[in-house]
Structure formats: C-alpha cells, structure tokens
C-alpha cells in the first residue's frame, strides 16, 4: 500500500516536472518571438542609423552585368534632402547616358533624357538606368514607415547572427517591392541581406550589403551609416547582376534650386 502511494507521488512529481519543462520551453519560445512593436523598433533603428536629417551628396558607380552583353559601368552623382524626401540622381558616364537623370519631387519620380529633351514620370519599380537597382536603394531607409514586419526568427549569416523579418508593404504607398525578407545584424542593426518578392511570392531580387560605412552628420548630430557596396542578383534573369559602389559622401547643404527640373536639364546643355 505504502509502495503504491510512493509510486503515485513519484509519478505526480515526474508529471509536474515534465509539465514545467514543457511550459518553460513554450514560454522560452514565446519570449524569443518578437512582438510587433519590438520589430517596428528594430526597423526604426535601421532607418534611424541611415537617416541624415539634412542634405546628402555622393557618387555612385553602378556596374551592370547581363548575359550575352558587354558589362556597363555608370558613373553617377546622387543628391537627397531628408526634410521633404527629395531625391535626384544624375548620370555622368558613359557618354551615351550623360545628362540623364531621375528627380523625385512630391513623391513623384521623373526621368529626364536629354537626347529627346522630355520628362517621363516613372514609378518606384523603375530600374535605374536599366540596371537592377531601384531609386529606393540610394535613398534613406524608410522600412518602419512603409512596411509591416513579421518575425521569422534568428539566422546565422556567416559570422553574423541576423534577425530575419518578413516585411509586407503598407497599402497606398508606391514601393519598388511589395514584399521583402530582410536579415538585420543583431549586434549593429546593419542590413546584411534582402530578398525582394512580388505579391505572388515570386523572388525577384537578392541583395547583399557586405560593407557599411559611417560619416558624421552635423545636421543629425550623430553618425549616418550607409552601405559602401551593394550587390544585386537578379532572380528572374539569373545571369544578371548589379554592383553599386557608393563613394565621396558629402553632407553639406545643397543649393535650394538643385531639386528642380531646370537644374537637371541644365546639366546636359
């Protein structure tokens, strides 16, 4: 009888311990999954690190490799202003593209081609100069403002531990990609990798950000981080890839009339 009671109490303790272990495991997993505010906070940090709160000028070399075509290198200068989200990219080389440019004013993206002297309104899906880069690749990051995140856990990317998030575009915003899977370095909050998708779930592009640099911004009163090198791999036309190198970042104030059609037109006269 006593032995039976002992056996019962042992079973009960074992059951309680097992229950505790399961509960701990569940609660541990629950603690590991990020809440939406936590994910938004991460995105805000990512955005904030790249924000300048002022003007920006830099050179960008864009190398485009395509199957059965000669590699093309574009030399460009691009400008942006944080206060009203204005943006401009001006092509300097090669000669055939010199004077072409994109101007973003009032959230409308315009393309200018001096050979025809006409402006064309483009969308955020526009491939800059026919490469696999988009305008947003050169602009400040606005992930928290433009996307809703979903946690996909942590993942090792080489030596880095990355927070993996799936971002879905908010309605009514003109976006280059409606869905992005993003890997953010847990330690630095630098973006390491992105996979960009169509709404159908089709993978369109994979981007790698191997080099991040910082520059001190007086207008921000802190450092501004930017990717010195970005590699884009076309997932639709597998052989195509684009390399973007960003150099000579200058955060001094830009002339007030720079973000105008007249200014861009004047560069090809």
């Amino acid at each position, binding site marked *: 009888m006593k032995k039976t009671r002992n056996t019962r109490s042992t079973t009960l303790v074992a059951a309680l311990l097992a229950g505790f272990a399961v509960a701990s495991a569940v609660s541990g997993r629950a603690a590991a999954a990020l809440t939406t505010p936590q994910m938004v906070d991460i995105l805000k940090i990512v955005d904030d690190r790249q924000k300048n709160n002022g003007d920006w000028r830099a050179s960008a070399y864009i190398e485009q490799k395509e199957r059965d075509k000669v590699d093309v290198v574009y030399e460009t200068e691009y400008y942006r202003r944080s206060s009203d989200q204005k943006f401009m990219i001006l092509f300097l080389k090669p000669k055939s593209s010199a004077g072409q440019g994109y101007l973003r004013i009032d959230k409308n993206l315009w393309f200018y081609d001096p050979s025809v002297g*006409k402006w064309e309104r483009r*969308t*955020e*899906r526009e491939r800059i100069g026919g490469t696999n880069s988009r305008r947003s690749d050169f602009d400040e990051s606005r992930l928290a403002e433009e996307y809703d995140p979903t946690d996909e856990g942590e993942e090792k990317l080489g030596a880095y531990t990355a927070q993996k998030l799936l971002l879905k575009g908010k309605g009514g915003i003109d976006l280059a990609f409606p869905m992005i899977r993003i890997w953010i370095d847990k330690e630095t909050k630098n973006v390491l990798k992105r996979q960009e998708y169509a709404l159908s779930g089709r993978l369109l592009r994979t981007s790698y950000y191997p080099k991040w640099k910082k520059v001190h911004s007086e207008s921000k009163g802190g450092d501004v981080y930017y990717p010195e090198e970005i590699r884009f791999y076309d997932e639709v036309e597998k052989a195509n890839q684009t390399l973007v190198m960003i150099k000579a970042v200058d955060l001094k104030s830009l002339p007030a009339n720079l973000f105008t059609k007249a200014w861009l037109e004047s560069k090809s006269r």
Partner: protein
Amino acid sequence: MSKLGVDLTIAFRSLVQHRRRTLFLGTAIAAVTTLLVLLNGLTTGVRETMIDTATTLSTGHVNVGGFFKVTAGQAAPVVTDYKRVIEVAKKTVPEMAFVVHRGRGWAKIVADTGSMQMGVTGIDVRSEPKFASVLQLVSGNIDDLAQPGTILIFDNQAEKLGVKVGDAVTISAPTTRGTNNTVDVRIVAIAHSLGLLSTWNSFIPIETLRKLYQFNQDSTGVVQIMLDRKDVDRKIPEISARLRQALEQAGWRVMPADPRAFWMKFQSVAREDWTGQKLDVTSWEDEISFMTWTLTSLRVLSIVLIVILIAIIIIGIMNTMWIAIRERTREIGTLRAIGMHRLGVLWMFLLESLMLGLFATLTGVAMGAAIAAGVNALHLHVPTGLQFFLMSPYLHISVHGSALFWSVFGITLVTVIAAFYPSLRAARLRPVVAMSHFG
C-alpha cells in the same frame, strides 16, 4: 375522305411502294438538309460569338467615342463630359438595353522578364456583369479588378510577359500633352485568350486609366450602347443616324460617319485642323471592321457550299424522277385512260415530291439540330489558329427555330421545283403511248 386526303394517301402509298427509291432520295435530301442546318448554324454561331465577344471586349452595339485634340496634331481617344452624352443617348435611343462607358488607351506593359505594347481598356467591372460571364479565367479573380492598381490580361500575354497572378507590371503611356506617365499595377486575373480582340487588349480599372492619362472624372474613352438582340441586325444604321443628329443638336461637333475602328482614324484625325472635342458615332461592325472579313469569308464559303448542295439535290431529284416516270409510264397511261386529267398526273407527282421533301427535310433538320446540340454540349475546343478568328476557344453552332423553318421550306420547295419538269413531261404523255410502253 376529301380529294386532298385521297391524293395525299395515293402519294404516300406510292412512296411506300417504291420504298428503295424513296429511302435513297429521302436520305440524300435529309443529309443535305442536315448539312445546310449545320453550315447555317456555324455561320450564325460565329457571328453571334463575334458579336458577344466584341461587345464584351471592345465595343458596344452603338458607340459614342471621339477624339480630343489639345493641339491640331495630337489626338487622344477621349470623350469629355461623358455623363451628358449618356443623358442624350438615353433620351434618343429607347431601344437601349443598357449603357456603359470605358476608357481607351494604348500603352507599353513592362514586366520583369519582358514587355509588350497593347491596348488598355478602363472598365468599371462592377457595372458590367456580362464581362465576367464571357471571360473564362485561367487564374485569379475578376472581382479584384474593382480594386485600383490592378490589371486583367490574357494567357497569351501572360506567357509572353512571363507573369502570373500577383506579379506587378508597369504601364507606360504618353498623356494627351505628350508626357510619358507610368503606373504600377498588380495582375489579378488571367483569362483564356478570345482570339484577335484579346491578343492586343487588357483591362484595368477606369480610375487607374484616368491616373495613367491624367484624365479628370468627367472624361472617358467611349460610351457603349447595348441594344436588345432583336435590334442588333436591323436598327443600328437608323439608331446611329438618330444619335448623330441628337448629339449635334445638343451642341457637340460630330465626325462624319466612317466605318472604321477608332484606332484606324488617329492619323486622319491628327491631320485635320481643329482642336477640342469631336464625337464619333460608330457601330460594332465598324469597330471590328478589320476582322469582319472572317465572317464575310465564312458567309461566301457557306453560300458556295449551299449552291453546290442544292445543285446536287436538283440533279438527284430530277434524275430519280425521270427514272420513276419511266418505270411508271404504263401506270400513268392507265390513270389517264380511266379519266385522270393531265393536271391530276402533274399534281400527283408534285404531291409525292412535296411529301418526300417534307419528310426528308424534317428528318434532316431534326438530325442537324441534334448534332448541333451535341457539339455545343461537348464544348469542342477549336485549334489555336482558328480561335484567333472565331474569338472563342470553343466551337459554337447556333441553330434557331427560324433557320430550321427556312431550311425545311427551302429544300422542300427546291425538291418540288426539281420535280416539276419531269412531272410535267409525265402529265403530257398520251395514254395510248403510255399504256403500250414497255420499260
């Protein structure tokens, strides 16, 4: 029993007595009638499919389109103040079943793997329930076309662009002022191709089309007036003339009647020295004039075949009647000897032919109608090349009661006419000669 009853009984017994010949000739007439019904049904089916597809995809039965010219050399297919046009149309066309308006455009569609030029039609899919019933979807949901920033394309276009439902494409087109504008749209539905008209056409919400071309809310591409089926064949020229006059009286400038599709008029309109709005009233046949040659070809082919078939019937019947009269010469002589008039002999043979023709054609139309119903029920796929012109993936044979009646009437009449001369020759036989005939 009345005289007609007696005559009919004699004719029927005579047909039964010459069973083999009756069966042979009857089968031939029935077969020809069946062919006639099917041929006619095919032409009618193609025509109806063409009207249905065309009036769903690109045109109304009567259209009020037109051009707006900012400068003398630039013409855009735009109707400004379209609500007032609809008001005038409603007052002027009591035959109207319903009216819709659509935007018209021609743009470059750019996907990640390809691009193509095609027409973009702005549509309010909620106001056009027939649209969904005519299109057959490969994937997606047609109701999603009510959302802004969406597009419906056809399977051949999806294949060329390398896209599927959910993918985004960019539409690029010049506005009326000549500035290129673009919009991004999401593919919400891919439909089975409907031939020539769907090859170069796609559908986007009219609001998205307005955004692309920077039109205001009072502008559209065309006002499409749909009529009751009974008025489609007969009344369109009259309605068009009436509408043209009413629009002119309401203060619009109206272009002279020109039986071409709107896109064929761009060059001539751009050459004209005027600016502002001009309206253009067209019929469905005008709008698909570039492809009605398929219908005309089919009609000509049908007429040629029908003539050949009727010639075969006439030759067959006359030949058979000659044989019959030769076989029955002694019988004719006897009938004449016992007092039957020449007219009576003629009537007897004609009545036989009439009865034979009637039975055979009735059998023929019944067979034709049954085959047509079977073909329609089977939903037979036509080869892709043929779909291009038929504007339907399926073979549709349309057999109407009136067509059946005219087939019976026509072939029976031909049978009687073909029998007339041999019967007349039989009636003219002299009794003595006829009775002494050994055949």
